[in-house]
């Protein structure tokens, strides 16, 4: 085990203590595992709450703050949080204007957020929900749990958060969140497997001359294994997989995302290839974000997320944001 941890059992709590220490402006409830904006509830503002398994940092805790999430609920590593957490978060951020749950489409997340919605509504909080399901690697969604939620989660959280910050009512925040999801697609690639603290060894065996295409963010293997490809070839493959499902007629937001252990130098090199193939396919890029944002612990690899932007999406993307991991305009 090459991990910077104490014991596997305390990894999530330790991370939350460290988040609290670094960001005094967040309200971190380590025991109940809820990260809340220090100034919540903000009068008249819709709350935007997300959550999911830990191990994807900075998602979601690193996106709590002005202009993005009102609260985040971290589960155990790669395990959806429990309904009690989300209900608690909803209660903490609700100003009476209601709360939007941003839910990545995994069976566990869906079921737990469903239960949380019931709990919160029983306590008088109005709750809407939007499912993020952008991962085109999951095909035949009739015969699967459906497309996974991956990189588009960042777009949805940022843009819904900006709309809420502007004072949009719940149904408008929900509608724009849904629209962003519908206009977003992702595809991911792994160059190495992931090691969870509890398991202590790689979740699958990936010989060093091979890679996995179409992976998710939980260390699960992808749909297909291939001999190692170049950055150029991976960009062609990933972007074309996205464009097969999404034919943007307006400039896109691009997230060129690292899975956690891919050096930024390589990720920027990959971004150059992503821009090249987009140019070759005639897709203009409005904004690009490069970095490790939706990660899978120590996995090496990358994903590409494109969102067909429109004027409102661009405006809300550019709106000020101030969170541990994403900051601009303020």
């Amino acid at each position, binding site marked *: 085990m090459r991990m910077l941890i104490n014991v*596997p059992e305390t990894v999530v709590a330790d991370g939350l203590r460290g988040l609290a220490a670094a960001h005094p402006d967040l309200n971190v409830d380590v025991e109940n595992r809820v990260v809340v904006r220090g100034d919540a509830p903000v009068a008249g503002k819709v709350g935007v709450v997300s959550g999911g*398994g830990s191990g994807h940092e900075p998602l979601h805790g690193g996106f709590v703050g002005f202009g993005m999430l009102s609260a985040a609920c971290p*589960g*155990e*590593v*790669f*395990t*959806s*949080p*429990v*309904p*009690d957490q989300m209900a608690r978060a909803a209660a903490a951020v609700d100003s009476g204007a209601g709360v939007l749950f941003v839910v990545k489409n*995994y*069976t*566990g997340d869906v*079921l*737990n957020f*469903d*239960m949380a919605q019931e709990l919160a509504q029983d306590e008088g909080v109005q709750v809407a929900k939007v499912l993020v399901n952008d991962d085109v*690697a*999951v*095909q*035949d969604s009739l*015969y*699967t*749990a459906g497309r*996974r939620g991956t990189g588009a989660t960042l777009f949805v959280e940022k843009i819904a958060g900006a709309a809420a910050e502007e004072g949009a009512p719940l149904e408008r925040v929900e509608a724009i969140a849904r629209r962003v999801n519908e206009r977003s697609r992702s595809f991911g690639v792994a160059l190495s497997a992931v090691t*969870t603290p*509890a*398991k202590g060894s790689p*979740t*699958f065996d990936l010989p060093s001359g091979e890679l996995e295409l179409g992976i*998710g963010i*939980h*260390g*699960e*293997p992808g*749909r297909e294994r291939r001999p190692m490809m170049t950055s150029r070839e991976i960009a062609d493959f990933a972007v074309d997989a996205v464009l097969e499902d999404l034919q943007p007629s307006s400039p896109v937001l691009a997230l060129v995302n690292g899975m956690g252990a891919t050096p930024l130098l390589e990720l920027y090199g990959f971004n150059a290839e992503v821009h090249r193939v987009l140019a070759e396919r005639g897709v203009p890029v409005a904004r690009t974000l490069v970095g490790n944002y939706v990660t899978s612990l120590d996995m090496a690899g990358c994903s590409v997320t494109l969102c067909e932007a429109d004027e409102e999406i661009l405006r809300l993307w550019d709106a000020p944001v101030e969170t541990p991991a994403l900051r601009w305009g303020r």
Partner: protein
Amino acid sequence: MLDADFFLRWMNALTEAVNREAGRLTELDAAIGDADHGTNLQRGFTAAKAALEKDAPDTPGAVLMLTGRQLISTVGGASGPLYGTLLRRAGKALGDEAEVSREQLAEALRAGIAAVAQLGGAKPGDKTMLDALEPAAAALDESFTAAREAAEEGAAATVPMLARKGRASYLGERSIGHQDPGATSSALLIGALEEAAR
């Protein structure tokens, strides 16, 4: 007849089995999921055990309801709501009887299984816990041993299946050849019944 004490012994035996087999469950989940099924259940049943010890319920139904509630509040993932619902729903079906028959338990489990199927949308053959639970509940009318055997066979039968629900479904064809972790833990759940009856 089976009283609250039997149900407490059942949950105890199950907790021990989960602790014993956690590593294997996680390994199975690593192959076609995200390597947490063992730790998920360990966390849940450890919490449930503490709750049952703190304030032992005095009816079979209450034992299952409390355990299910604890699973929902501590497990997370897919298995938390699913197993939580299974036990809560079965517990509800048992009402507040002080003692129930094996046949009543089988009936209650079927109600729980139906709730799981509704919640998760899975059908038999989708390579999930249902593939162990359904045959086990049917065989429970016969005996605890028959139920345990049916659950184990059901779990083993998931190996050649192509997963259609849960994380394993993302793998498509690559999910074939691996035993489903949830079906495997369901076999533990049913096996623990036999132990409690000894």
